[in-house]
């Protein structure tokens, strides 16, 4: 059982670190929640199952001066690689416990399937089947139907970087072409449709900044220019153009840095597809500079570097 092996792995490194980041059961059966363990007896609280969706590496930059053990899935590990590229963590201060992952659960998708009834219990079968028990009875779902979209095209089920690996490495069986299929499909819409789409989506934004604060790469946090007067990029008006602008700030500051963990989108209480713009930029960065964030620690984020001759950038004619 992976949970048990994970506990053992953490117990094994516990003495080396100040804190260990893992998952525990949340307020109900459907939710896991991050836990910060500082005492060995806390290890028993630890769980591992497809509800462990959170990208725990988000906490790392703020714990820069501590020794931290952190549990990461394949997708989460890209964050660490990106942190290394940008010099945001001290790698030697982090003990990475990697877990190969077959996909996690989108809580919203499960709730959608169960008509938003309170979940009494949820169990996970061997082959990705999920049994959900509500007041109204039991329902069996397939992981592939209720996983977040990122899992459907996951290229890195096994962590790219780790110190200990719990479980056997998994190779992705998903086509690399599928990763940005949705982005390419969106590009088939007309300009008007696209503008309308974003206006409708962004109009819901309440500027709670959950997307920003959940984003591991949003390093500004309290210094975010969405809230400052100097510089005064946007006002606190709840107008569409200000909301639009906020999301542009978010996307452009993530340009070529987003590791596509999807935390922004998962965190949004208003169901806005926050990750889409960043993924579009990632697609462009890949096409223009052959760059994929969070893969190679030696890489440089493309917008913080340049080539004297950019063969892929053609001069534009009017």
């Amino acid at each position, binding site marked *: 059982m992976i949970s048990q092996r994970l506990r053992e792995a953490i117990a094994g490194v516990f003495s080396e670190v100040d804190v260990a980041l893992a998952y525990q059961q949340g307020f109900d059966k459907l939710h896991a929640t991050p836990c910060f363990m500082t005492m060995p007896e806390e290890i028993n609280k630890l769980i591992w199952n497809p509800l462990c969706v959170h990208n725990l590496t988000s906490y790392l930059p703020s714990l820069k001066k501590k020794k931290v053990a952190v549990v990461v899935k394949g997708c989460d590990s890209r964050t660490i690689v990106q942190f290394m590229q940008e010099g945001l963590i001290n790698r030697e201060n982090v003990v990475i416990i990697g877990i190969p992952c077959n996909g996690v659960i989108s809580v919203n998708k499960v709730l959608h399937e169960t008509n938003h009834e309170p979940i009494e219990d949820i169990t996970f079968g061997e082959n990705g089947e999920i049994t959900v028990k509500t007041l109204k009875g039991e329902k069996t779902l397939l992981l592939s139907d209720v996983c977040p979209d990122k899992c459907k095209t996951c290229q890195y089920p096994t962590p790219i970087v780790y110190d200990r690996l719990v479980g056997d490495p998994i190779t992705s069986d998903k086509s690399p072409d599928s990763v940005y299929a949705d982005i390419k499909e969106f590009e088939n819409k007309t300009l008007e449709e696209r503008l309308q789409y974003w206006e409708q989506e962004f109009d819901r934004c309440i500027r709670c900044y959950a997307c920003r604060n959940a984003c591991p790469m949003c390093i500004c946090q309290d210094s975010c220019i969405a809230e400052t007067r100097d510089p005064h990029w946007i006002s606190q008006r709840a107008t569409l153009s200000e909301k639009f602008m906020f999301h*542009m700030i978010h996307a*452009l500051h993530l340009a070529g840095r987003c590791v596509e963990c999807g935390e922004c989108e998962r965190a949004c209480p208003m169901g806005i597809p926050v990750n889409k713009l960043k993924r579009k930029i990632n697609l462009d960065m890949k096409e223009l500079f052959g760059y994929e964030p969070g893969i190679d620690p030696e890489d440089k984020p493309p917008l*913080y570097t340049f080539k004297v001759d950019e063969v892929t950038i053609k001069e534009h004619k*009017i």
Partner: protein
Amino acid sequence: MSDVAARELRIVGFLCNWCSYGGADTAGVSRFKQPTDLRIIRVPCSGRVDPLFIVKALLNGADGVLVSGCHPRDCHYTDGNFYARRRLEMLKRLLPFLGIDERRFHYTWISASEGGKWQQTVTDFTKRVHELGPLHAKKEATP
């Protein structure tokens, strides 16, 4: 907006001080006639132009944005326009994804001696923005 201005569209230009602003000056000294829609903001270097300025302008009332810097390798600050080139290209590709016609945004390289190129660029870009029409007909009014 005054009556005269109604004939015009709002075009914001970010010009680097060393090359393109000089190029626009050269065009002026040479009396190269140009459309009057463009409003020029002088920046030290095209590398100073945060793509957010362009987004901000387009969201807040501009119908077109033009950025011009020194030719690659000719940057007064050596590398500024190299950074600009990547960032502006990124934005150029992102705009249509947002539903904003990328033709409303143009970036180019014009040296201080290229008054003719400046005239041509302003003329062509203004013409194109006019072909596309106003961007903000239906947008909410922000005071």
